[in-house]
């Protein structure tokens, strides 16, 4: 069952992960692997595009929390964009907008790396 998919693409020096479908405790390892791969190849400037994500539970947010410290120590970041309202609310309820840059447009998320 492919209820969740990650695909990868590059824009300027930034790696963009597009996530799609349902991100829960079952599918979170697949996002974890995708980010781990980036780190393994010394890629620390990451944007995650949530446009096609229909659902997220705390397991998905946990994946982000698991990497962020390491990534920032390497001068990088994970920036988040194009969340629908429902998904943004989950991030908001847990106070994530204070810790992560969350933008509406992907462009703006990418831009933030180039300032």
């Amino acid at each position, binding site marked *: 069952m492919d209820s969740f998919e990650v695909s990868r693409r590059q824009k300027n020096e930034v790696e963009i992960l597009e996530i799609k479908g349902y991100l829960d405790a079952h599918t979170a390892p697949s996002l974890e692997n995708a980010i781990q791969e980036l780190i393994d190849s010394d890629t620390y400037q990451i944007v995650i595009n949530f446009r096609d994500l229909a659902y997220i539970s705390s397991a998905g947010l946990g994946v982000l*929390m*698991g990497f962020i410290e390491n990534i920032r120590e390497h001068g990088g970041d994970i920036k988040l964009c194009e969340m629908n309202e*429902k998904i943004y609310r989950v991030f908001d309820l847990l106070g994530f907008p204070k810790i992560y840059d969350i933008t509406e447009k992907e462009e703006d998320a990418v831009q933030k790396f180039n300032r």
Partner: protein
Amino acid sequence: MKNKKQTYHLKIPGKTENLELIRTFVSRLAQMSGFDEDDIYKIELAVDEACANVIKHAYEGKGKKEIDLLLEIDYKKLTIIVTDEGVGFDVNNILKRDMKEYLGQMKVGGLGIHLIMSLMDDVKLKSKPGEKTEVRMTKYLVKDGKIKSKQVDDG
């Protein structure tokens, strides 16, 4: 779905691959009960979190035991009781955590119970180390005597 209380009972193997099935069931039932899309999403997510905890903490991912879901509907609320046969935990210890401080430390985990509390109107955790855990959560269809319009509170 008029006046009388209706009970739905689901017992399902405690494996992450069943979370989607659980969500589908719960959201359909919430829809039948008359909740709006917004509340359906909250209920679905809260139940997902409770069940994911059972799988991860009570059964430590082994998936050999079952998650017990009891759903009670009446004309003014939906109550979901998630019960496991797991290892239990110290509820007071968890509830004391300060979310802000916690996020400040950027630790992994600890988000689930906070979410459940924020998403549902009433939440009761029953657990002790070494005993089974019961999470009982309620969402009201009617608030202060009238049918809720949209999203009265966010937690």
